[in-house]
C-alpha cells in the first residue's frame, strides 16, 4: 500500500536555528500516527510544513500523491486539520460554521445538507446545529471542529493536541469519537499530544527531539525495547508458589518483595497464561504492569514530556 504521507529529508532552518534537521518518515493509509516530542522539538514546525502553512527550507513532502510545494491546493483539499487552538467563528452557529467550510472546500451544493447531518451525527451535535458556537462548552467546540475537519472527506486528518484544556471525562469521550472515526471511515490520522497515555491508541508513534526523529515504531515495540513487562502476583502461599515457578517456568526473573512475587519477563502475554496454568496455589492478586510510553519517552529523550521550555 502506498503511503499517504511521505516526508523526505525535510529541513527547516531559521537564521540561527535548525528547527527541523532532515527528517524522514512515511504514514500508511488508514493508520493512526502519533507524533510526540517535548515543546520546541520541532513538531509544530513539521506539521505547519506538512499543512502548507510554512515553506520547507529543503526536502520534499508528498500527501495523497500531491507535492506540498507545487500542488498546495490539491494538498489542502486532501487534508483536514484540527488545530491546537479554537478556530471556529463563535459568533456564528454550528451550521453556519460547517456551511462556510463546505463553501471553502467546494463541497457540491446538493451534498452539503447530507454531509453536515452526517458529521454532526458522528460527534453527537445534531441537536445543537442551530446554536451559536459561543454557547458551546470546550468539549463541544472540539467535537464541532472535528466534524468540520471531516466535511470535505479528507484523506488525512491532523489532530494537533486535540484534547488540550479539556477535563478528563471529555477527553475520554473525544477519543471514543476519534476511534469510532477510524473504525467507520478508515481515515488516516496524524496526531500530536502531550498526554502520552493518549498516544497509546496510535498504530505507530514517532518521537521527535531537537529537530530530529529519534525513534519511530509501534507503541508496543518501543516499549518492548525498554525490556520486559512486570507481573506482580500474590498467592495464598507465596513460598510454595515461588518454588513452582522456579521449577516449571523458564526465562523469568523472579523475586519476592513483601507479600508480592515480582516477575520480570520479556513478554507478559506468553507468561501470564502459563503461570495461571501451572500454579496449583490459588492466586489472590495479579497485576501486570507494562512500561508506558512515558517510560519510553524518558528513555529516549532523557526527560519527561513537557519538561523543556515553551516553544
Amino acid at each position, binding site marked *: 500500500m502506498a503511503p499517504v504521507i511521505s516526508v523526505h529529508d525535510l529541513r527547516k532552518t531559521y537564521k540561527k536555528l535548525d528547527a527541523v534537521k532532515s527528517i524522514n518518515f512515511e504514514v500508511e493509509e488508514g493508520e493512526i500516527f502519533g507524533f510526540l516530542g517535548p515543546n520546541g522539538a520541532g513538531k509544530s514546525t513539521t506539521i*505547519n510544513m506538512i*499543512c*502548507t*502553512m*510554512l515553506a520547507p527550507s529543503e526536502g520534499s513532502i508528498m500527501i495523497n500523491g500531491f507535492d506540498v510545494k507545487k500542488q*498546495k*491546493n*490539491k494538498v*489542502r*483539499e486532501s*487534508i483536514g*486539520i484540527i*488545530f491546537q*487552538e*479554537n*478556530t*471556529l*467563528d*463563535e*459568533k*456564528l452557529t454550528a451550521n*453556519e460554521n460547517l456551511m*462556510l*467550510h463546505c*463553501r*471553502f*472546500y*467546494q463541497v457540491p451544493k446538493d451534498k452539503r445538507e447530507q454531509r453536515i447531518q452526517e458529521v454532526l451525527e458522528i460527534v453527537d451535535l445534531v441537536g445543537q446545529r442551530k446554536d451559536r458556537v459561543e454557547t458551546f462548552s470546550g468539549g463541544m467546540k472540539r467535537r464541532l471542529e472535528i466534524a*468540520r475537519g471531516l466535511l470535505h472527506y479528507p484523506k488525512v486528518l491532523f489532530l494537533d493536541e486535540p484534547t488540550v484544556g479539556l477535563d478528563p471525562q471529555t477527553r475520554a469521550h473525544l477519543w471514543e469519537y476519534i476511534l469510532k472515526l477510524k473504525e467507520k471511515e478508515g481515515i488516516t490520522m496524524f496526531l500530536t499530544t502531550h498526554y502520552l497515555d493518549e498516544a497509546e491508541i496510535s498504530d505507530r508513534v514517532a518521537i521527535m527531539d531537537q529537530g530530529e526523529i529519534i525513534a519511530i515504531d509501534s507503541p508496543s515495540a518501543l516499549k518492548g525495547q525498554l525490556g520486559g513487562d512486570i507481573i506482580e502476583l500474590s498467592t495464598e502461599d507465596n513460598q510454595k508458589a515461588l518454588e513452582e515457578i522456579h521449577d516449571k517456568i523458564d526465562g523469568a526473573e523472579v523475586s519476592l518483595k513483601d507479600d508480592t512475587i515480582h516477575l520480570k519477563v520479556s513478554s507478559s502475554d506468553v507468561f501470564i497464561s502459563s503461570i495461571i496454568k501451572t500454579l496449583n496455589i490459588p492466586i489472590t492478586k495479579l497485576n501486570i504492569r507494562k512500561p508506558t510510553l512515558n517510560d519510553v519517552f524518558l528513555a529516549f529523550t532523557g526527560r519527561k514530556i513537557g519538561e523543556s521550555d515553551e516553544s
Partner: protein
Amino acid sequence: MEGILAIWQRDLTKFFRDKARLFGSFTMPILFLLIFGGGMSGTMENMMTGSMGAAGGAEFNYVEFVFPGIVAMTLLMTSIFSALSIIEDKDFGYMKEILVSPISRVSIAVGKMLGAATVATIQGIILFILIPLIGLSYDYMALLQVIPFMFLLGSALSGLGLLFASFIRSTQGFQMTVQILVMPMIFLSGALFPVNNMPAWMDFIVKINPITYGVDVMKKIMIDLEGVSPVVREAMGLDLMVFGRQVSVFEEILFILGFAVLLVLLATLSFRRANA
C-alpha cells in the same frame, strides 16, 4: 468565486449580528453630519457672503457641499476599520481555517475587501435618509448614480485597510496607525472644507490623496453644477486641477479603480506568504 462569496457573506452576517457595531455605524455618520454640517455652515456661509456680497451668499448652502464629503468620510472610516476583522480573525484563529483551505489567496483578499466595502456603502446610504431632514434636496438619479461609485471608493479604501492589517498584528497598533493615517486623509481631501490655496507641500498631499478624487467625484455627481455660480464653484474647490489641467470625473474614477486593484494585489501577496 464561491470562496469570495462565502467570505463576503460571513463578514456581512457578523456585521448585522453585532448590535453595538450596528448602533455605532448608524450614529457615527449622523454625529459627523451634525457637527460639521451644523457647526461649520454658519462660518462658511458668512465667509462666502463676505467675499461675494449679500446677493451671491444668499443662495449658498454650505451643507449641500459638505454632505458628499461627510458621506466620503464615513466610507473611509468604515472601510479602513472593517479591515480590523482580519486582525480579529487572526487573533481568534479563524484565519487559519481560511488559510489552510484551498481558496485562492486572491479570493480571500477580494472577499474581505468587498465585505468591508458593502458595509461602508450601507452606512453611506443610511446617510441619504437624512437628506430631507436637514433641508437638502439632491436629484434622485444623482443619488442612484453615486451608489456604485461609493462601492468602488469603499473597495479601494478597504484595500488600504487590508494592506495595513496584513502588516500589523495587534488591534491597538492597527487602530493607532490608522487613526494617524485617516485624519490627514480626511482633512486634506476637501471633504470638510475646500482645499484651495494650500502651501505647496500640502497641495502635493492633497493631490496624491485618493480621497480627494473620491470626494470630488461624489460632489460632481451629487451637486447640480449647472446651477452653481462660477465663484462658488471655485471657492468650494470644485475645479480640481492636477499639473495645471482640470481632471475629468472619468479620469478620477479610473485612478481610484487602479488604486483598488493595486491594493488587492498587495494584500494577496501578504496572504500568500502569511503564516498565521
